[in-house]
């Protein structure tokens, strides 16, 4: 018995030790990430590249079947003046998605950042702020009714201690702006799925529980909310995979559709000098990507809305410019060559 158990454990380790190392010899022209999984895989696109950079465009349409606008639908772009909506950029992206049979995910209707100056300086009373919110949401959702499958209705309304952010919307409308936003979006397009979207939901259980509890109560009160977008801007060091699993499970257990809405896995969260990514870090990044995809795939089919990469290549990721550091968080390098993470997904999914 003792000998048997010893051999079993030894055998198990030999199996693991003999597994082949990952390879990075895979060609995106001969593979498609979207065909490896039974859920939608999306990408947030840069409107300055889509339509202007052929290689970018080809990679987007060959690898993904869902599209999110990284910026084009944020208020500062789409609603630059109180009496003016600028549809040019958003129209281009929605048309691209339709022409290539891709799902379009609208991002985002209500956020406290990237607001146009006229909203930041708006001096109305509570009723005028409510009317502004209603007009902003209904005009945008109406325009794309039937063409946008789902919307991130409210983005990042909570802070890290689980309380509501004192945003410009909160200051003028109180907590009711969240409920109103979902109701207006639903009135404008009853068929669109409506999501709440936020960051650090895996890293911070306090915030996650507060968000889920708040949205559950809203849902019970009849507010039309379908899902939660967990952004998953994570890195190779933390959070633990078990925390990512927990986050996904808790969202689904609460009955919400799950969207990993802004996935990227940074290599350099401590902002060290990193002119080139290290091989070992790229391998860890690859393992993490695979772990996220596999954990997502274990969720109930009805609740799997999809995974969206927050950018296509390391060259167009938001991370290096936002944090002022060298980093390589996405599946493709700056020359649109597949990284180890892409290869791992193609080989192991």
């Amino acid at each position, binding site marked *: 018995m*003792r000998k048997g158990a010893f051999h079993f454990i030894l055998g198990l380790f030999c*199996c693991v*030790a003999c597994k082949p190392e990952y390879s990075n010899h895979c060609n995106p022209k001969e593979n498609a990430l979207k065909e490896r999984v039974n859920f939608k895989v999306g990408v947030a696109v840069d409107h300055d590249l889509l339509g202007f950079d052929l290689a970018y465009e080809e990679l987007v349409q060959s690898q993904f079947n869902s599209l999110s606008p990284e910026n084009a639908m944020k208020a500062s772009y789409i609603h630059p003046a109180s009496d003016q909506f600028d549809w040019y950029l958003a129209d281009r992206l929605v048309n691209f998605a339709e022409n290539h049979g891709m799902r379009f995910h609208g991002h985002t209707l209500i956020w406290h950042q990237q607001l146009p100056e006229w909203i930041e300086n708006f001096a109305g009373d509570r009723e005028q702020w409510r009317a502004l919110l209603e007009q902003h949401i209904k005009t945008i959702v109406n325009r794309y009714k039937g063409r946008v499958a789902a919307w991130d209705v409210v983005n990042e309304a909570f802070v890290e201690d689980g309380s509501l952010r004192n945003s410009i919307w909160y200051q003028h409308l109180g907590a009711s702006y969240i409920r109103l936003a979902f109701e207006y979006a639903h009135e404008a397009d009853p068929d669109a799925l409506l999501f709440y979207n936020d960051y650090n939901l895996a890293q911070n259980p306090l915030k996650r529980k507060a968000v889920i509890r708040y949205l559950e109560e809203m849902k019970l009160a009849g507010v039309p909310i379908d899902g939660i977008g967990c952004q998953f801007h994570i890195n190779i060091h933390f959070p*633990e995979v078990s925390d990512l*699993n927990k986050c996904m499970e808790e969202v689904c257990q609460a009955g919400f559709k799950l969207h990993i809405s802004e996935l990227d896995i940074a290599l350099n969260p401590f902002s060290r000098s990193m002119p080139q990514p290290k091989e070992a870090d790229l391998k860890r990044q690859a393992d993490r990507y695979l772990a996220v995809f596999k*954990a997502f795939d274990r969720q109930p089919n009805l609740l799997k809305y999809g995974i969206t990469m927050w950018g296509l290549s390391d060259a167009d990721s938001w991370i290096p410019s936002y944090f002022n550091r060298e980093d390589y968080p996405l599946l493709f390098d700056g020359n649109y060559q597949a990284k180890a993470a892409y290869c791992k997904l193609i080989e192991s999914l």
Partner: protein
Amino acid sequence: MTRFSILILLCMACFGLKAQVGISYYPFQSEVGINSNVDKLLWGDLRLASNTFYGNITTETNVMWNVKRYQKVSVYTGLGANFNFFNAAGDLPITNGYAAFAGCRFRFSKAWPGLQLAFELSPYFNTSFSGGTLRSSLGLAYQF
């Protein structure tokens, strides 16, 4: 560090094969455990994450050393490794990370001398020691 993981696993196997066992449950962590005789100087402990998909079940194997043993309380420290054996089938590393332990067990019932309250602090690190968490656990245990 893989050698360390193997060592911990082998120690656990030795403890498990010849020991008088105990069980434990840590409700806040959703963990269930089985351990060898906690009254010995060295004892082994194996914990499984529960209330999760099978593919997410992690196994933590720990070797503990009783620093002080009193009639009602034992104070221990230890080292362990956290695995997900299902990862082996999924082309992922099976070792998730490593943990250190400082804990104590209180025998609080005269009528049930095997019943114990367990409290632990446990710094946990990923396999590269570049990130981790400070865990605390409170649970009930029974030594047969």
